[in-house]
């Protein structure tokens, strides 16, 4: 990983981002707006599954409304995040928060994929069948907190050693 960080830091793109002070703040703004859009959409889908919002729509309608925004904003998120990694490879790739965040991001995205596949397969009966099961509602609840964790860990990258050092004192010598 150290070699990858060194190679990334030696690229022209990385040096350009590091040299132009405005790039990182600008890309971070785009990154925050994108996660906001994803989070709002995920929240609405979770609330729909839980029956706390959107009961005027079927789950297929609700997912049709929000999933393009989730995937569109996820592309923006990945591209802006990629630029941030290029700009500050050590800060990102050598931080614990970053890798836990990537795991949470994979799980959170996996839930969205699973929902869409399940709807595709059972779109006629989903609302009365799968949608009414307790497991589905629990998963909706879990998804909400997985995306909360993605946001929290993204912000914690800035204080990585301080936070993880305080949580696991022995891991930092």
């Amino acid at each position, binding site marked *: 990983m150290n070699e990858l960080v060194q190679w990334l830091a030696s690229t022209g793109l990385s040096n350009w981002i590091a040299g132009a002070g405005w790039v990182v703040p600008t890309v971070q703004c785009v990154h925050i707006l994108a996660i906001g859009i994803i989070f709002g959409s995920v929240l*609405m889908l979770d609330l729909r599954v839980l029956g706390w919002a959107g009961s*005027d729509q079927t789950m297929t309608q609700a997912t049709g409304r929000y999933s393009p925004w989730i995937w569109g904003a996820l592309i923006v998120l990945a591209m802006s995040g990629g630029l941030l990694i290029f700009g500050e490879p050590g800060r990102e790739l050598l931080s614990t928060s970053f890798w836990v965040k990537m795991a949470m991001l994979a799980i959170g995205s996996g839930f969205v994929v699973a929902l869409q596949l399940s709807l595709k397969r059972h779109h006629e009966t989903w609302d009365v069948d799968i949608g009414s099961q307790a497991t589905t509602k629990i998963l909706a609840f879990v998804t909400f907190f997985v995306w909360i964790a993605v946001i929290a860990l993204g*912000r914690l990258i800035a204080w990585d050693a301080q*936070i993880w050092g305080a949580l696991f004192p022995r891991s930092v010598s």
Partner: protein
Amino acid sequence: MDMHSIFAAIEASPVGVWVRESPNVLPYVNVLHVIAIAIVFGTIFIVDLRLLDFPNSNRAFTRVAHDGLKWTWAGFGLAAITGLLMFTANATTFLVNTPFWLKMGAIGLAGLNMFIFELLTVKTAAAWDRGAPTPRAAKVAGMLSILLWASVIILGRVIGYTKGVGVGEISIDLNNLNFLN
């Protein structure tokens, strides 16, 4: 009392000292602030898009607003509390930070936009609630809301890069004053 002594008193308050000096409180407050911002922007964006008839006007505006805006308010409440905590910890630094005041101004304008919309435009909602194009006033309100809240987020990020810049010069001036005394 001038502004600086008021802000210095806020900073010296027990809450200010606690947030500033307790280990890791500032990072966790900051994390909650970002979560709150994501909730505010993510939910109000959905309502604003509906005001712009995007992607369509199939769902009643009142339903979309009812589903989303309570979360916007909850998120705003959390953002205000966590923001106030961060402000209290370093009040004098924010006093001289232009992006901070611009951000407060943008929040004020976003509030004013919402107030005018709720006071006037919403009263006509029965006519365009569902399946009909929204009036121009609603579209303007939706567009302004997206732009203003995005500005709030951008200015908030700028604060992180400008806060404390120039404070070094002020401390040098203070040293000179002490020296003269």
